[in-house]
């Protein structure tokens, strides 16, 4: 059969990035990133169980500049995935499907996750 150049459905790179699509893929991205965080959580817990030496060794990485950068990226991802997850649960119940509402809820999710990340950073800095 000869190859026919039938029109294909528009693909991702054709579209201009929109808030809704960017937030959607970010939900997946943060999900994968947080799974790596879950693996690290297990390593951290194992280091506590293993004794002071391994805990101190892990903690040195956690408290370094790169450790703190990854840690706060995890904190932001956690708040984002949590807020956007609640947004998804609302959709599952049939609420918030109007275009205007999805944009409003999208901006709320972004604002809350940024604010909560900053608040967590302030609390940790203030506490320690």
């Amino acid at each position, binding site marked *: 059969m000869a190859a026919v150049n039938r029109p294909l459905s528009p693909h991702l790179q054709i579209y201009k990035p929109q808030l809704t699509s960017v937030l959607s893929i970010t939900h997946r991205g943060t999900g994968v990133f947080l799974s790596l965080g879950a693996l690290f959580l*297990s390593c951290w817990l194992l280091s506590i169980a293993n004794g002071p030496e391994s805990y101190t060794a892990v903690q040195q990485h956690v408290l370094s500049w790169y450790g703190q950068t990854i840690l706060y990226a995890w904190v932001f991802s956690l708040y984002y995935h949590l807020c956007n997850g609640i947004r998804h649960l609302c959709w599952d119940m049939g609420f918030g499907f109007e275009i205007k509402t999805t944009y409003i809820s999208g901006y709320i999710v972004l604002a809350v996750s940024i604010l909560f990340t900053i608040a967590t950073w302030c609390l940790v800095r203030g506490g*320690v």
Partner: protein
Amino acid sequence: MNLRTPLAKVRGLGSAKEGLHHWWALKLTAIALIPLTLWFIYSLVSMTTLDYLAAIGWLQSPMTSTLLILFVFTVFYHAQLGIQVIIEDYIENEALKITSIILLKFVMLFAGLAGIVAILKVFLGL
């Protein structure tokens, strides 16, 4: 000639086979993770020091270990369900897809269980 009724065809080909359980488990763990995640962040942030003895003391509280075991279990369960969907969506090669999903399940089960065993070891003072 096909003697199957249209209703039988629909019943045999619908999407709602085992997929429904996957969706339901993803949503149930998501709901459980709302309070568990907030507790986890609160619990870590309210620790004044992060030295070894503080970490041990943290895990030796029965409430902390209980909630932390629940948190680790639910996180890993939710994570492997979510990544499975991503693998199914983006990997076209059937053999690679199945291999990745099997590997994912094994790694996540191992890591989740290791985390829980670590919590129990410290909690029981072994």
